[in-house]
């Protein structure tokens, strides 16, 4: 079946630091999304990015579909960036999302 692996599993940053989160997937994608789950459990959409590069403020993402990975960049991290970051993919023309294993991020003062 589809496998979506994320790294690192855990990350602790000092406020202001930059980081890169990685998502590896096992099949060609027609949908890849990045989410941030805040400490209250709410999933917040960050990017829809099956290919290419997008930027939104301090966050940017790049997906290289031919090599089956996606990267999420967080610059100048803030304590409000803390939480779990998930990538999720849908394949084969379908719309069911398979979620990755997640990266737990903690940003400290």
């Amino acid at each position, binding site marked *: 079946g589809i496998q979506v692996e994320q790294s690192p599993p855990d990350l602790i940053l000092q406020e202001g630091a930059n980081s890169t989160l990685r998502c590896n997937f096992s099949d060609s994608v027609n*949908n890849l*999304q990045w*989410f941030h789950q805040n400490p*209250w*459990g*709410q*999933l917040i*959409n960050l990017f*829809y990015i099956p290919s290419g590069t997008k930027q939104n403020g301090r966050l940017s993402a790049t997906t290289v579909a031919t090599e089956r990975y996606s990267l999420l960049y967080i610059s100048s991290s803030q304590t409000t960036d803390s939480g779990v970051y*998930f990538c*999720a993919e849908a394949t084969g023309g379908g*719309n*069911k*999302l*398979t*979620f*990755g*294993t*997640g990266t737990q991020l903690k940003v400290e003062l």
Partner: protein
Amino acid sequence: SAVISQKPSRDICQRGTSLTIQCQVDSQVTMMFWYRQQPGQSLTLIATANQGSEATYESGFVIDKFPISRPNLTFSTLTVSNMSPEDSSIYLCSVELGLAGVYEQYFGPGTRLTVT
């Protein structure tokens, strides 16, 4: 995007009982989904809620345990039946929205269930 609400937001239930979770969206959508997130884990798809027909369940999930209703294009319910402590999880509904060929899923705030 869409405004998605879930009721209840949290509940504590006794084993052997059932809980019905509601998901309401502020616009008509074709695709609605239900996910489970066990403590410290990622999200797993339970089923696709189909309007006017039975839900489509993923491997490991059955209708007797997780009956789903989808009476119209803005509403769905998920029931967790005959609960055990292993059912303690966050249950989330999602909807798929399409615009200019981009189909993106958006999630409700979740229902945090504890079974004692």
